[in-house]
C-alpha cells in the first residue's frame, strides 16, 4: 500500500461519536464510556446546534477521556453535546501554496481563499530532530536592523528570543524583521512564518498590511490568533506555524524565519488548562512542566545534515512587570541561544528599536560573522562598541552624582560615544533597511569619536582601514 493509499484508508475510517458527556470544566470536556481513544487524538465536539469545534485528548483511562476544546466550551452543555474521536492526531495540510496565505490560530484560511491543496498532512506536534543529525548553525541572516545585525547577529537555525515589556515596540520590530529579513550571498529561497498569538485586532491588521505593502507577503505565511479568540487555541498556533515552517525548510529546502509573538499569551493559555486540570501549580501558577512544554516549541529550530533548509526562530515574549526573572523569560532563556532585551528607559526616550545591548546576547553570533559571512572586522568592532557603550553608561551614572564638570576629558568623550551610539546606531526608522556594510560603517563612526589609543579591541590593520577620527 502506498503512502497516499494508507492515508486514504486511515482517513476513510473516521471515528466513533460519543454522547455521554460527564462534565464540562473550563476548556475541558470529560467524556464517559470511551473505548479506544488515544492520547493527543483529534476530537470533533458537536454542539446541540450542529456547530463543530476541535479539541484533543489530554488524558484517557477508566473509560473516561479528558478533551481540551481549542475553541472554548462557551455554549456547550452536558446534554446535547457529542464528541467524535476522529482516530488521528491534529494535522496541518501543507504545500508550497501556503506561501502568501493568512490562516487563523488553528491553521484554517482567514483570507477568503479555499483550503490549500495539500501536498502532505503533517502532525502538528512535529517529530523531534535527531540530535545526531543537527548541524551547527553558522550562516548569517540579515534583518536590516543595525543593532541585531551588528551586535546580536542572528544565524540560520538559531533560536533567539526578544524579551520585551507591556506596551513596548516589539510588534513594530517583529514586523520590520519579517519585512526585511533575507539571506545574503546565496540564491536559496527564504520565507517567513509569522505566528501572532493572542494579539489585538489592530496589531494583526498591522502585521498583515505591513507585509502586503512591502511585497513580503508572497514569501510569508501568517497565522493570526486574536486576543478575542479562545485562549486555548493559542496552544495550537505556534505548533501549526512550526509545522509549516519545517515543511518549507526540510521538504522544500527554504531558509525559514519563524516569528512567534507573544509567547507570554501561549504560557497563559497553558496555565489556564493546567488550572482546569487541577494540577499542582508551579511558580506563579504556571504548570511544573512549563519548561518541557516550551522546549517542545523552541527546539523545533535548527538545521539538519544533508538538508538544504533551516528553521530559525525569533519568539517574542512580553515580560510581566518587565521582570526578567519571571518564569516565562527565565525558562525561555535556558532553552534558547541568547536573547534580545528591549529596555524601558530607551523606549521612554523615544529610541526605536529600544534594544538594551548590555543585557542582550547572541550566543551563536561568533560563528555567523567575520570574513566570508559579513566582514572580517565585524567581531572586533562589535566588541569595541559594546565596551565603549558600557563605559559610557558608567560615566553617565558618575555624571549623575558629580556633575559633568567633575568628569575628565576622556569621560566626556565616552559620554559622547553613548549619545551617538543611541542616536545614530541604535535608532533606526521602521522602514529603514540597512545592509551589513552600512551597519558596520556606523559602528566605526561611533568609536571614531574616541582617540585611537582607547580602541584596544580592534587590530591596527582594521584601524588603518576603517577608523574615521582625526587622532
Amino acid at each position, binding site marked *: 500500500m502506498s503512502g*497516499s493509499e494508507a*492515508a*486514504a484508508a486511515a*482517513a*476513510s*475510517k*473516521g*471515528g*466513533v*461519536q*460519543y*454522547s*455521554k458527556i460527564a462534565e464540562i470544566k473550563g476548556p475541558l470536556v470529560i467524556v*464517559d*464510556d470511551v*473505548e479506544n481513544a488515544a492520547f493527543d487524538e483529534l476530537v470533533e465536539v458537536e454542539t446541540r446546534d450542529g456547530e463543530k469545534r476541535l479539541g484533543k485528548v489530554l488524558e484517557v483511562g477508566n473509560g473516561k477521556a479528558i478533551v481540551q476544546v481549542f475553541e472554548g466550551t462557551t455554549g456547550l452543555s452536558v446534554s446535547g453535546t*457529542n464528541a467524535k474521536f476522529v482516530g488521528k492526531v491534529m494535522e496541518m*495540510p501543507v*504545500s*508550497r*501554496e501556503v506561501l*502568501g496565505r493568512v490562516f487563523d490560530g488553528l491553521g484554517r484560511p482567514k483570507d477568503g*481563499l*479555499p*483550503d490549500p*491543496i*495539500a*501536498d502532505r*498532512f503533517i502532525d502538528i506536534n512535529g517529530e523531534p530532530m535527531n540530535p545526531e543529525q543537527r548541524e551547527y548553525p553558522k550562516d548569517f541572516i540579515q534583518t536590516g536592523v543595525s543593532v541585531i545585525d551588528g551586535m546580536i547577529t542572528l544565524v540560520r537555525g538559531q533560536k533567539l528570543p526578544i524579551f520585551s515589556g507591556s506596551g513596548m515596540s516589539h510588534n513594530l520590530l517583529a514586523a520590520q524583521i519579517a519585512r526585511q529579513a533575507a539571506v545574503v550571498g546565496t540564491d536559496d529561497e527564504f520565507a517567513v512564518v509569522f505566528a501572532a498569538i493572542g494579539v489585538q485586532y489592530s496589531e494583526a491588521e498591522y502585521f498583515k498590511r505591513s507585509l*502586503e*505593502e*512591502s*511585497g*513580503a*507577503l*508572497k514569501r510569508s505565511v501568517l497565522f493570526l490568533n486574536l486576543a478575542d479568540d479562545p485562549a486555548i487555541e493559542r496552544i495550537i498556533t505556534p505548533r501549526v506555524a512550526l509545522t509549516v515552517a519545517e515543511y518549507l525548510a526540510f521538504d522544500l529546502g527554504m531558509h525559514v524565519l519563524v516569528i512567534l509573538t507573544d509567547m507570554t499569551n501561549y504560557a497563559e493559555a497553558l496555565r489556564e488548562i493546567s488550572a482546569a486540570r487541577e494540577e499542582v501549580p508551579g511558580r506563579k501558577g504556571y504548570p511544573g512542566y512549563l519548561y518541557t512544554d516550551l522546549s517542545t516549541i523552541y527546539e523545533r529550530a535548527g538545521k539538519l545534515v544533508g538538508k538544504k533548509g533551516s528553521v530559525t526562530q525569533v519568539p517574542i515574549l512580553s515580560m510581566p512587570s518587565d521582570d526578567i526573572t519571571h518564569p516565562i523569560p527565565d525558562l525561555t532563556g535556558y532553552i534558547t541561544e541568547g536573547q534580545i532585551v528591549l529596555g524601558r528607559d530607551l523606549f521612554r526616550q523615544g529610541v526605536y528599536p529600544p534594544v538594551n545591548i548590555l543585557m542582550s546576547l547572541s550566543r551563536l553570533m561568533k560563528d555567523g560573522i567575520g570574513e566570508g559571512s559579513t566582514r572580517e572586522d565585524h567581531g572586533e568592532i562589535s566588541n569595541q562598541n559594546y565596551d565603549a557603550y558600557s563605559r559610557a553608561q558608567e560615566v553617565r551614572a558618575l555624571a549623575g552624582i558629580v556633575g559633568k564638570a567633575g568628569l575628565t576629558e576622556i569621560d566626556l568623550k565616552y559620554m559622547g560615544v553613548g549619545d551617538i551610539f543611541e542616536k545614530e546606531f541604535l535608532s533606526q526608522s521602521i522602514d529603514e*533597511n540597512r545592509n551589513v556594510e552600512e551597519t558596520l560603517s556606523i559602528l566605526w563612526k561611533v568609536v571614531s569619536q574616541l582617540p585611537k589609543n582607547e580602541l584596544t579591541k580592534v587590530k591596527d590593520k582594521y584601524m588603518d582601514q576603517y577608523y574615521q577620527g582625526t587622532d
Partner: protein
Amino acid sequence: MTASGPVAQLEQTIDKIIRQTEEEILSGMESAAGQSSQALDDAIPALEQEYEKIIADGRKEADKISRQIVGSADLEVRNRQLLALEDAVDGVFVRALEEVAAADRNGADYAALMRSLLAEAVSVLGSSDVVVHASAQDRDAVQGILSSDYAGAELAPEPLGCMGGVRIQSKDGAMTFDNTLDARIERLKPLIRKGIASKFGAGN
C-alpha cells in the same frame, strides 16, 4: 589763499575717500569672490556625496516599490488561480456526487459494498447489538443483511437522509459511528481535492 583753495582741497579729500572706498570695495569683492570660490570648492565633495545619497536612496525606494508592485501582482494572480482551481474542483465534485447518488443499487457490487460498510461499522463499535440507520433506497438491502448476519441489530424506523451507506448507534445511544457514503466522502475530501487538482496540473 584763493577761494578755490579749500574747494580743491575738499575735492582732493573726496577723491581720496572715493579711491580708498573703491579699493576697499574691490578688495572686499576679491576676498568674497575668493571665499565663495573656496566655499564652492569645499561644497563640491559634500554635494557629490549628497547627490550620491539621494540617488542611492532613490534606487532603494524604487527597488522597494518595484518589489511591492511585483509582490502584490504575483499574489493577486496566484489567488485568482486558486479560486479558479477551486471552482473547477468543486464542479468535478458535484458531478461525481451526482453520479454516486444515481448509481445502480440493484447490482451485486452495491450489495457487497453495503455489507462491507456495515461490517466495518459493527467492528468499530465492537458490538452488533446496534440500531442501524439507512436511506430510504437502501432500507430493504440493509434489512436483508441484518436478518441474515446480525441477529441483535435492528433497523431504525426513520429513513436517513444520505446518498448511501449506514450509520449505526449503540442501543443506549451513547456511541455512534457514521459509515454513510456522505461521511466517508467528507472525511476523504482533502485527499480527493488533491487528486482532482492534480488532474488539472495543480499541486505538487
